[in-house]
């Protein structure tokens, strides 16, 4: 395998990590919507950290390796229309996913506060935070952007 092949393989592994992390985060976002107990909220957020980690590692790796690949391969160029579209969509996804993390961090903070004040029972306030529509909206925007990147990468309009 040449350097190009390795960069390509790692680019795809990074993409799989990112999209896999996103799929995983959706599973926890959906599961969190019915949760109102602080201990379960904290446990779910602990598990969701794996998804967050995958997204945090995947996002910069995929763009870095993708640009490197476009420089290495003569038939691909970072200034081609489809490549620029992918970079713009990546920026939108990165911004939306960061904003979504901030929203969901609020419920984790609240759960910690409740646990600290020894309120272990169901909390309507916590349930409302777990069902945050802003967080859900930003997560949906990030996911839509990532899906569009995958479609753009496969169909390569104009290439």
């Amino acid at each position, binding site marked *: 395998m040449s350097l190009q092949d390795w960069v390509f393989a790692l680019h795809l592994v990074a993409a799989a990590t990112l999209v896999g992390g996103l799929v995983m985060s959706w599973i926890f976002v959906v*599961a969190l919507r019915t949760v109102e107990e602080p201990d379960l909220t904290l446990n779910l957020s602990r598990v969701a950290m794996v998804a967050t980690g995958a997204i945090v590692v995947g996002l910069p790796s995929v763009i870095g390796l993708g640009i490197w690949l476009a420089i290495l391969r003569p038939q691909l160029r970072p200034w081609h229309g489809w490549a620029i579209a992918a970079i713009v969509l990546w920026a939108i996804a990165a911004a939306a996913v960061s904003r979504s993390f901030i929203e969901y961090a609020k419920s984790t903070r609240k759960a910690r506060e409740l646990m600290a004040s020894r309120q272990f029972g169901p909390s309507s306030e916590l349930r409302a935070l777990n069902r945050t529509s802003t967080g859900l909206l930003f997560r949906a925007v990030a996911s839509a952007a990532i899906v569009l990147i995958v479609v753009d990468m496969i169909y390569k309009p104009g290439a």
Partner: protein
Amino acid sequence: MLAAIRPAGQDLPVLLHIVGATLAFGGLLASVSAIAFARGQVRLLRLGYFSLLLVVLPGWALMWLAGEWIYHKQGWNGLPGQLKHETWLQIGFVVGDYLGLLFLLTLLIGGIGIFRLRSGKGGTGLLNATMVGAVVIALGYVVAVWAMTGKPGQPSAAAAPVSGAQAGTPAATVNVVATEFKFTLSRQQVPNGRVLFTVVNRGKIAHDFSIGGRTTPLITPGKRAELTVTLAAGRFFYLCTVPGHANAGMKGMLTVK
């Protein structure tokens, strides 16, 4: 796979294959994490199992079906034996088929675990076994992504530009022009003995040229490669081994007298 430019008509199966694979991978990671962090919490154990059942299973099925679609669309089933047994393709089949069976077994064990959990007879141990199975499958998945994209065993674009060159004068020289997606050969018939193929890529994407069990390295646009092959009298199938290219038209038959 993503960074490649493919013949028309293969994009949809590739998209579905990738969507299925990433759904399966995300579900596997979710399942492993939920069971690992459950610490006996039933809802998390259930979440781990249902991630496998409701996310990984449909994702795996989509990946597998779209993979078969790509296999037939790219014409792998119509290629000579040694070409359709590429290492990277075999790795894909091992992961898709054998780990698929392991996945079904994992799902069954997890299902029994969930049933026992519901009826208050334990089940945590079975769900931990499910988690171990999911970890093995997730690791296999990473190997498959590497194999599908890096394609170990295939000639590399960055490899040496000339292969098969031997001393002595060839019995014939054939100039081959590769474009998307066809080969144009300067002659369709050659005398038996050593034949020199001079392959020029006038297309926009990389191609190779394979005949008589020998293959040039991947030739990037505008570049050339030479391949010397000793051919006995008969008919020889030639093709581009880049997935999908032969099926799109980059193949033919050379007669050796």
